[in-house]
């Protein structure tokens, strides 16, 4: 069974990641738990649905009061952190 969803050209999200309403995140792969804010939750959910990077930008700029440049910068940064926590997995 595939447990990863393709997100970008070379990164997959671990599909078993559990995200609660309050921003509590659990990674069954490593057993780690995390806390994320509203925007972080939104990004993780979109990634789980298989959103592409472009879908993500659009979703963020449609939903939140943020411009594309800021969203791009913040996403790049957020992805680095997700990778370091093995929530995103490089393929």
């Amino acid at each position, binding site marked *: 069974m595939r447990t990863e969803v393709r997100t970008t050209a070379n990164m997959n999200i671990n599909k078993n990641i559990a995200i609660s309403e309050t921003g509590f*995140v659990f990674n069954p792969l490593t057993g*780690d*738990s*995390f*806390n*994320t*804010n*509203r*925007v*972080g939750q939104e*990004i993780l959910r979109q990634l789980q649905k298989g959103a592409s990077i472009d879908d993500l930008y659009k979703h*963020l700029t*449609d*939903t*939140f*009061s*943020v411009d594309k440049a*800021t969203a791009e910068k*913040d*996403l790049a*940064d*957020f992805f*680095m*952190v*997700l990778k*370091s*926590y093995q*929530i995103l997995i490089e393929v």
Partner: protein
Amino acid sequence: MAKISYERPVITKLNTGTMNKFGTRTEFAPVTHIDGVSVKKLIADYGSPCFVISERTIRNTYRNAVRAFKTRYPKVQFAWSYKTNYLNAVCNVFHQEGSWAEVVSIFEYEKALRNGVAGEKIIFNGPDKSEEDLIKAVENNSLIHIDHSDELYMLVEVLGKIKKKARVAIRVNMDTGVYPMWDRFGFNYENGTAWATINKIFAHPELELVGLHCHIGTYMLTAHAYSVATSKLCDLAINVKYRYGKNIEYLDLGGGFASANTLKGSYLQGGDIIPTMDDYAEAITSTILNYGFKMDELPTLFLETGRALIDDAGYLLGSVIAIKRLSDGRRATIMDFGVNLLFTSFWYNHRISPAQEISSQTEDMVLYGPLCMNIDVVRESINLPLLNKGDQVVVHRVGAYNMTQWMQFIQMRPRIVMIGMDGTPHVIREKESLDTMLRYERLPEHLEKIG
């Protein structure tokens, strides 16, 4: 449909069961005002970064210190330690409150004179006094605290030339149980050098030994060290009385009381571990009172308290220049102030608060200054609410040493503003400009043109 307000995405790992070595901090409440003046407005009017000093806090802190000592001992005199912060406005608040001046160079000495401090109310400390400096101090009848025997001999020679007498004290260094021992300044108590020097002074009628001085260290975490120091000075004073029949007029216990800043490497917040002013006062005054002086021969207690009287009154306001991610995943925040302005960040973990409403999310980050230099680290690890470019912060307890030890390095030094008792901000030091720097440069003629 209205869009939801945005905050940059963050995700923080939850560590259960392990102690956070940075200590848990719940001091994230924004500090939006200082003495009722908006931080935003201060930055708009005076620029970022900028230092802010609260006159009210200085006076309150000073009055509390005076209360702690005067309610325990009849004769107490504070002398403001100029090197701690020698901005005239700051010095004059202390002088208005009744403080004398304690200086360690002719530059500070002349600053005190110009501030209107009477010569006989200036204590001249330090190892570097030239012949000219000594003449000036003698003529103004200042208290000369002799640091080494070369100074003693030079002073004797000077007095011979100008046919005057000098009021002197010696600086005594000693073992107070706190290490490393500060034995670099003054004459040692335990090995008898201090007593031998006192005897030399009495051999010179042109020298009048009026006081005994020590400064046992700085940021002293134990009040007990002051009991030890006080009893050693008392011992010398009683011996002077016994041998020469002379009453020592004052004992000067120097500075060294801790401020509530947190030392690097300390797990506990500074405010939770330092002795209070009352603890220090009790240690010193009870030692003198119990030593055996006759009531009418009690020496005046001089104090040269520096950081504990001014740290709390000083703030540094600054702004976020940029945020970035380091290769190891850590968040880095670059501020517009660094070690150039915050010299004390080498040994303190300064408390830093956001100056605007903030999110409930926090993250660990390293705080860098603006200098293009690797040493420019304000905090190696601090947990703060999410900061964005342009956000403003308030650094607390920066009143001591920063505004004297700051460096003009890469950046110029910013304005210093004092908020007066009625809440009016006053610029007490202008910001530097290129002209400030160029005023002292000279170009040889052949280098005036470059092409």
